[in-house]
C-alpha cells in the first residue's frame, strides 16, 4: 500500500513543486507505515537521483513522446496503471497548472476523493485521511475528510519544505499500455509570456507589486529597478492591469492570480479585499503607501508610510548595498 507521487520535469529540471510533493509523500508514507514511489516521465538518471534524494524509495520512469505536453489524458492513464501496479492508496501531485488538470481527472477515473491545494500534512484516522486546505480565498481553512479507498492530495506550491538527503532510490522503467488512445486536444501554438527575464509569477518567491499610487505607467521604472535589485518578479493590482498600464499576467488578486511568495512588496496599493485574496498566502508582506489609513497595513508584516517615488529608489539602493556586502 504505497504512496505514489507525480513528478513533473520542466526545462530539464525536476520542478521544485514536485520535490515538495516527494518530501510530503515520503512523510505521509512513513505515517502510514509504507514508502513513497515516484512516477516521472522521460526522466534521466540525474533527475531520478534527485527524486530519490527528496524521499522516493522507488522511481518509476515512463518513456514516451505523448507525455511531453503534460496532457492529463495520457498522464492519467499512466498514473492509474502505476497506482494499480504499486497498490498505491494515496496519490500526491502539486496544485500547479498540470496538477489542476491531472488530479481532478484521476479523482473521477478512480472515484478517489481529492483535496486540492492542501496546506498541511494529513491526520490519519483509521482508513480516513483528514487534510487541511485554504477556503474563501485564503480567509479561512477547512479540514476535509477523504472517505474513499484511494485518496488524492494536491499540494499548494511553496507550502512545504524540500529536504534532500543522500537516500538512493531504486529506479525502474515502467511500461504503460496507452491502448491506442489519442487526446483530441491539438496544440496549434505555444507562446512564452514575456516576463523580461523574471521568474514567472506563479513560481516567483520574491515579488514587487505596484498599483494606482504610481499614478501612471511611465513611472514603473522604479518598480522594475527594485525588482531587478532583489531578483524579484513584478506584479500589479487589478485597476492598473485593467487600464493597461501593466500586462494582464501581472494582475494578482481574487480575479487575477493567487500567489504565495516568500516576500511580497506592495507599493501604492491600498489593499482592497479582492487584492488581499490573491496575496494573503505570502510569507512576508511589506506595504509602502503614502496613506497611513490604507487597509493594506492591517495585513502587512512591515510598513513604510511614505511617498513611493522617494522611498522605492532608496530601498533599491539599500538592497544593492546589502547584495554587494554579502
Amino acid at each position, binding site marked *: 500500500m504505497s504512496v505514489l507521487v507525480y513528478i513533473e520535469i520542466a526545462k530539464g529540471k525536476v520542478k521544485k513543486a514536485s520535490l515538495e510533493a516527494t518530501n510530503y509523500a515520503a512523510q505521509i508514507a512513513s505515517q502510514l507505515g509504507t514508502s513513497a514511489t515516484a512516477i516521472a516521465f522521460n526522466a534521466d538518471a540525474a533527475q531520478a537521483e534527485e527524486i530519490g534524494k527528496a524521499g522516493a524509495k522507488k522511481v518509476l520512469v515512463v518513456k514516451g513522446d505523448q507525455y511531453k505536453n503534460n496532457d492529463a489524458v495520457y498522464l492519467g492513464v499512466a498514473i492509474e496503471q502505476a497506482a494499480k501496479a504499486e497498490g498505491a492508496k494515496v496519490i500526491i501531485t502539486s496544485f500547479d497548472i498540470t496538477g489542476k488538470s491531472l488530479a481532478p*481527472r484521476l479523482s473521477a477515473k478512480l472515484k478517489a476523493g481529492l483535496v486540492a491545494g492542501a496546506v498541511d500534512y494529513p491526520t490519519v484516522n483509521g482508513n480516513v485521511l483528514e487534510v487541511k486546505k485554504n477556503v*474563501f480565498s485564503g480567509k479561512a481553512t477547512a479540514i476535509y475528510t477523504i472517505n474513499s479507498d484511494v485518496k488524492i492530495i494536491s499540494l499548494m506550491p511553496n507550502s512545504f519544505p524540500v529536504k534532500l538527503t543522500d537516500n538512493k532510490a531504486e529506479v525502474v522503467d515502467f511500461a504503460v499500455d496507452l491502448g491506442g488512445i489519442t487526446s483530441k486536444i491539438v496544440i496549434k501554438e505555444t507562446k512564452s509570456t514575456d516576463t523580461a527575464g523574471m521568474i514567472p509569477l506563479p513560481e516567483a518567491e520574491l515579488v514587487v507589486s505596484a498599483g494606482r499610487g504610481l499614478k501612471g505607467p511611465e513611472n514603473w521604472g522604479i518598480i522594475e529597478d527594485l525588482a531587478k535589485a532583489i531578483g524579484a518578479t513584478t506584479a500589479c493590482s487589478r485597476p492598473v492591469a485593467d487600464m493597461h498600464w501593466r500586462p494582464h499576467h501581472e494582475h494578482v488578486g481574487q480575479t487575477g492570480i493567487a500567489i504565495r511568495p516568500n516576500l511580497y512588496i506592495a507599493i501604492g496599493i491600498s489593499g482592497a479585499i479582492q487584492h488581499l485574496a490573491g496575496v494573503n498566502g505570502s510569507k*512576508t508582506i511589506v506595504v509602502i503607501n503614502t496613506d497611513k489609513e490604507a487597509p493594506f497595513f492591517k495585513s502587512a508584516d512591515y510598513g513604510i508610510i511614505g511617498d513611493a517615488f522617494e522611498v522605492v529608489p532608496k530601498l533599491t539602493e539599500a538592497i544593492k548595498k546589502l547584495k554587494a556586502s554579502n
Partner: protein
Amino acid sequence: MKILVAISNVPDTTTKIAFSDNDTKFSTQGVQFIINPYDEWYALVRALELKETGKATVVTLFHVGLADSEATIRKGLALGADDAVRVNAESPDSFFVAEQIAKYAKENAYDLILVGKETINYNGSSVGGMIGGLLDFPFVSLATKLDVNGNTATVEHDIDGGIQVVECATPLVISCSKGMAEQRIPNMRGIMAARTKPITVVEATTDAPLTNIKSFALTAGRTTCKYIDANNVEELVSLLHNEAKVI
C-alpha cells in the same frame, strides 16, 4: 451547439467570513450571494457572446444548490441565458457537483460545458477536470480566449510560463479565466424576461460523497505591522534579511 454553463452561488467578495454550528458550517447571516465571478464574467458572458454571434443555439445554466440559490440563478437568466437547471442538493464537495453536471450534460447532449476556473469560496479548481474524467471528454483549463467554428473550439489557455493555443472537437469541457470576456450588467429587459424563464429542478444522485468538510477555521491575520521610518529604509532591508530572512 448547446452550451451548459455551471454556476456556483458564492458569498460576495467583501463578505466577512464567519462560521456557525461549532465551526462546521459557513454562516450565511447577513451575507450577499452572487454568481461566482469566474462563472459569470467569463464562462457565461462568453457563452452568451457565442449565442449572439450565431455560433451557439442554447445557453443553459446549471447549478447545484437549494431553493435559496434561486435569486442568484435568476441573475444569470437576466444576463441572457435561456433556461436553468437546479439540482436540489447541498453539495458536499467538487466531485458531487461534477457528477451532477456530467450526468445532465450527457443525457441532454451538450456540446460545450463551461465552468469558471475556481470558486471564490472553495478554490478547488477541480470540477472541470472531474467532468472531463467522468465523461471521458477533453478538458482545457485556464482558458483566456474561446472561439468556435462549427464543431471545433479554438482555445487559448495558460500553461507554465506562457500561453498555448489549442483546437479541439466538441464535446469538451473548458474552465474559464480572466480575459475570455468582460463583466456585463443585466438590463431592465433582461431582468423582466428572467422572471418567466424556466428553472427545472432535478434530484441529485445518491452516491456517498468521496470527501466532506469536517470543520472550518478563520485564518489568523497578521497581527502587527512593524513600521519603519521612510527615511530609514536600511532598517527595512536589515529586517527582511535578518528577521524575516527573505532576502
